[in-house]
């Protein structure tokens, strides 16, 4: 997925399901695409919040697991070679002589002839561990990007959701020791994963929270507060992975100057925002009677792209023809897996 380009016909802001389908549809219309997302992986709130949930309102799929839907959407767009900018948070939008520039919070920027905002509920940032600010980048992380980097280390994973258990599962056998700390005695993660991790003998401390982090300069231990025992225990470790979930916020998009209503971007029937050349689709947009569902967002994506195509080329037709009429590279990709 790593492919850097800084200019395309369409810049899609947000790689959730609707953003991915928007990028696919732009590819289908022969438009080049850059996809930006603040998260390191595609899928937006489906990946961040409920990868294991079964989704039942996607056309053609009686049931599909969240992460399988995301995988299928990525496979659908991949043949069109979109340029991925994951882990980049869109910060500012400028328009100069018909070229839009999206600048990210890390200072990088991309440009496009049109922008489609598919930012959903906004920018997801990991919830941070209390009293740990000083340890960011030296012993505390919020994602496990490369499990092998933790080889031989004593790792404490904090959280009880899918990410915490997935990482415990991945790191068991790689890290020297994995201890999972969770504030409750119930887990939010998928039961199969919980059972697998517990079956592997990963040490799990329930009703426990990380009270503080110790070590200078490197992290050496965490102090664990146990609600049952009402005491602090020192747990020696080399690395802490905080999987405490995400917090979403509309973030900088609220300040782009787009017309908003109830903190959503107002669009017309062509999915145009108040800024000519900027479109929106999915849960970030609003109009009278909008129903916030994935099925609705997919339709909006097609509408937005077809009208964005006319913005890019006024001679183009908003009606693209039928996807069945043309041969395309997409047919080479595997069909989405049925569950």
């Amino acid at each position, binding site marked *: 997925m790593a492919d850097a380009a800084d200019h395309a016909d369409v810049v899609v802001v947000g790689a959730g399901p609707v953003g991915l389908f928007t990028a696919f549809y732009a590819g289908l219309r022969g438009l080049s695409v850059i996809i930006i997302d603040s998260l390191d992986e595609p899928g937006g709130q489906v990946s961040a919040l409920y990868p294991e949930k079964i989704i039942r309102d996607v056309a053609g799929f009686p049931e599909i697991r969240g992460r399988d839907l995301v995988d299928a959407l990525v496979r659908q767009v991949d043949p069109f070679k979109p340029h991925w900018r994951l882990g980049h948070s869109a910060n500012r939008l400028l328009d100069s002589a018909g070229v839009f520039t999206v600048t990210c919070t890390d200072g990088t920027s991309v440009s496009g002839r049109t922008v489609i905002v598919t930012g959903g509920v906004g920018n997801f940032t990991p919830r941070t561990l209390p009293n740990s600010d000083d340890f960011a980048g030296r012993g505390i992380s919020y994602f496990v990007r490369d499990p092998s980097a933790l080889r031989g280390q004593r790792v404490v994973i904090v959280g009880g959701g899918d990410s915490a258990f997935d990482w415990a599962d991945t790191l068991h056998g790689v890290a020297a020791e994995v201890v999972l700390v969770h504030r*409750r005695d119930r887990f939010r993660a998928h039961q199969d994963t919980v059972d697998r991790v517990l079956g592997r003998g990963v040490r799990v401390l329930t009703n426990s929270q990380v009270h503080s982090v110790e070590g200078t300069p490197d992290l050496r231990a965490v102090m664990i507060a146990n609600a049952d025992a009402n005491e602090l225990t020192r747990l020696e470790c080399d690395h802490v992975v905080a999987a405490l979930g995400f917090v*979403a916020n509309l973030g900088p998009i609220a300040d782009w100057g787009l017309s908003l209503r109830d*903190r959503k971007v107002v669009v017309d029937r062509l999915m145009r925002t108040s800024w000519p050349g900027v479109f929106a689709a999915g849960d970030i947009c609003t109009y009278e009677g909008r129903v916030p569902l994935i099925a609705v967002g997919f339709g909006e994506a097609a509408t937005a792209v077809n009208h964005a195509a006319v913005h890019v080329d006024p001679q183009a037709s908003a009606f693209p023809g039928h996807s069945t009429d043309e041969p395309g590279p997409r047919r080479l990709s595997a069909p989405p897996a049925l569950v």
Partner: protein
Amino acid sequence: MTFAITDSCVDIKDRSCMEECPVDCIYEGDRKMYINPAECIDCGACEQACPTNSAVSIASLGGKPGEWNVQDNADFFGVVLPGRPTPLGIPGGASHLGRIGADTKRIAALPPRDPS
């Protein structure tokens, strides 16, 4: 379809839901918590977090005695609460508002929970 917090939260307010909510849409009233139906994204994190099983999907309340809680959650945001000039509406996040020292009429009228 969203989630709602039922009256089994009254006078308990564990507030774990508030900490788990990824969109900060759970607001603290005087005696219970309330979910803003316009801000909830239906993820279900609150349901897992709540120790009193008070955070439930609206669908699960259909036809049950607790169904009135659905409207009551909405009323917390749509009706002018005591001591406030306007309805809360869609504030875009609970944490910057802090505790709202009021409840809906129906919740305020409930007898205090037996401490046992």
